């Protein structure tokens, strides 16, 4: 379930996402449409999809599942050479960039712990990432150069 709105004057696109993992399929479709409409390189799709997938999956699994009225919203825009993705949820305050477990990318197969990889990939693949708590909402902003 999603409703997408585009404001032509700013190129901003806002989508309300279902607060469950069905959001991932809507995410892909939303990004495809945004990239096509903005005339951006389709190579950006994989990167944007992966970063937002990881953040949405975390939000859905660890935060929104405990709320009576979960909200998850994605806003996409193009600003000064960057795709800017802004993801907001109304879950309890949680900064994934500082509070998620640290990823281990060097241990041997048998010892490799399994957590923290999604946030690690988001940090690595983005050009800038930020977290803010605004009006009882978690707000994550990712910049991705194109």
């Amino acid at each position, binding site marked *: 379930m999603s409703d997408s709105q585009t404001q032509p004057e700013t190129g901003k696109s806002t989508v309300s996402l279902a607060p469950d993992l069905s959001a991932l399929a809507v995410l892909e479709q939303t990004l495809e449409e945004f990239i096509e409409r903005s005339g951006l390189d389709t190579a950006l799709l994989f990167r944007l999809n992966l970063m937002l997938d990881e953040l949405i999956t975390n939000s859905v699994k660890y935060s929104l599942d405990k709320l009576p009225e979960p909200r998850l919203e994605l806003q996409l825009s193009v600003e000064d050479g960057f795709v800017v993705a802004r993801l907001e949820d109304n879950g309890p305050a949680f900064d994934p960039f500082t509070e998620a477990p640290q990823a281990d990318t060097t241990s041997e197969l048998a010892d490799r712990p399994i957590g923290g990889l999604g946030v690690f990939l988001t940090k*690595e693949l983005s050009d800038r990432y930020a977290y803010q708590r605004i009006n009882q909402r978690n707000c994550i902003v990712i910049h991705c150069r194109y």
Partner: protein
Amino acid sequence: MELSTEREDGVLSLLLDGRLDGSNVSEFDEQVRAAIEDSGSIVVMDFEKLRYISSAGLRSVLMTARTLGNKNVGFALCSLSEQIREVFEISGFDKIIAVHQSRADAIAALKG
């Protein structure tokens, strides 16, 4: 996400098609677990038709590598897209799981 299997000369090939993410990884795990119960001595995961994988999918591949390692079954991946290969490298997975250009290369390397 669709998973198909091919068995030939003691080699089990798992062919992934589509997207592997948090929404379908449980089903994928189940299918892989069932397929590798009778694995033969070599298992190759062919990513040729895999167009997307998230960390949920990477974790699943890691668990399969571990399970097969414990059984002394040879395991490798092949035919990764450039973007999936990049994700493997960033995650450091290329250091613990063998990655080859093609299925034939993977099988040849595992047969030694």
